[in-house]
């Protein structure tokens, strides 16, 4: 199929941060509609791989493309929703939940444009998806950690992206919310959204994930069925409680 270019593709990707090679020849391609969980111990290069796919960090070697386009010429960033690792959704100045989610569409409206009814409808839809619609006018910093996390996810969903990239979104979310979060992701995925999720462990995502990519010391050590990845995890135990940030 000609229109089925991979969502993200890297081949022989090398990333150097400071004096160490954080990624050492990673090959990865995510097919459209695929739900991929990216696993690995702390410091294995998971976050760096995500940043490499998104063009936030430079490759010292290798090739990468987004939706079949070279990253340098790719312009349709609204096709990607990104939720980076963050402790809170609050900033130095008060902002409402609605404002933070609306800011996800800032690039879409153009520098001289104004938010219109389409933008507000998209925000309402995104807030609905993460069950935060009643809190649209609340101040972000008054929300719990789990709710703030959902604000950031709604922000990423505000452009109606074809792929949702999330870096450890459930790190600060309790178990009950992890399950409701998994339901939300399942819903999005069934609707055709590709998902790339960085996590410590499969946890509540196990029934949803179609593929697991496990990296360790910057190298892919497993790429395939998620249950096998679960086995890998036992071989490399880590302690979620001691995860920094």
């Amino acid at each position, binding site marked *: 199929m000609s229109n089925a270019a991979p969502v993200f593709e890297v081949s022989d990707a090398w990333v150097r941060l400071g004096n160490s090679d954080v990624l050492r020849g990673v090959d990865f391609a995510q097919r459209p509609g695929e739900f991929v969980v990216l696993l690995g111990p702390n410091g294995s290069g998971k976050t760096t791989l995500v940043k490499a796919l998104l063009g936030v960090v430079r490759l010292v070697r290798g090739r990468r493309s987004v939706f079949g386009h070279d990253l340098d010429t790719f312009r349709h960033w609204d096709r990607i929703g990104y939720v980076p690792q*963050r402790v809170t959704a609050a900033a130095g100045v008060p902002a*409402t939940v609605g404002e933070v989610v609306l800011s*996800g569409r800032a*690039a879409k409206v153009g520098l001289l444009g104004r938010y219109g009814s389409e933008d507000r409808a998209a925000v309402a839809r995104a807030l609905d998806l993460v069950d935060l619609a009643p809190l649209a006018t609340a101040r972000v910093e008054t929300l719990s950690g789990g709710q703030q996390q959902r604000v950031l996810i709604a922000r990423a969903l505000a452009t109606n992206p074809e792929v949702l990239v999330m870096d450890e979104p459930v790190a600060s979310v309790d178990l009950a919310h992890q399950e409701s979060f998994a339901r939300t992701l399942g819903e999005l995925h069934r609707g055709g959204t590709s998902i790339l999720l960085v996590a410590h462990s499969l946890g509540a995502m196990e029934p949803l994930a179609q593929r697991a990519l496990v990296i360790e010391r910057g190298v892919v050590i497993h790429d395939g069925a998620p249950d096998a990845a679960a086995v890998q995890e036992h071989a490399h135990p880590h302690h979620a409680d001691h995860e920094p940030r």
Partner: protein
Amino acid sequence: MDIFALEFMRKALLAGALVGVAAPSVGIFLVQRRLSLMGDGIGHVVFMGVAAGLVLGIAPIYTALLFATGGAVTIELLRQRGKTSSDVALALIFYLGIAGGIFLLGLGDTSALQLSSYLFGSVLTVSSGDLVVVAVATMATFLVTHVLRKHLFAIAYDEEIARVAGLPVTSLNLLVAVLTAVTVAVTAKVVGVLLVSALLVLPVATAQQLSRSFRSTFYLSVAIGALAAFAGLVIAFYTDQFPAATIVLLSIGLFVVATTIRVTRGEG
């Protein structure tokens, strides 16, 4: 005595109100990024610019603008590099501003009076030429921050997300740096180099005690800034005080009142 009958007071009140509007409109993005002291840093560089103007015999407001812009762009470029040493580099720029300014003044025969007028402001001596520069700079700053506030909000909120979303983060950050420089340079004329940051930060800090949204913080801080500058000048006139002192003390007073209102509302 009618305050509006005096031409120098009319000019001072106009300059004060304009600066009061522009300073928080750019200051809010500094506060949001937790760069509240950026204004102070640029203020130091403005001092050197003023000294250069006095020595060269050019209207100091022009050299202040030039030096402030150069300093702000340098600070922003250092920040973008993201090196841990940028903190030290920032400090170096502050010291360079003051030491360089004193050095330049030593080259000429500038009186201590001229010096203190720029340290503490000299709004009562605003010339028509100064007023034109102040008006252009402040109105441009307010217009640009107002039009671009949703993009600037997105960037100040999270640069990485904004970059991935496709916003021109580097250019817009440089734009904010330049607007900050321009605002600091003209605000220094009103409240002086030492207190310039107060007008950028205090109205925002006051507004955020009472607001829930970014939008209302933006408009409220602009209104508070204009009120503090205007009323501070009026108070200075009738009490025969330094305008910089009354403007900033009034701003602090408004902050205390706003905080008290918030606390008594029970919003902790």
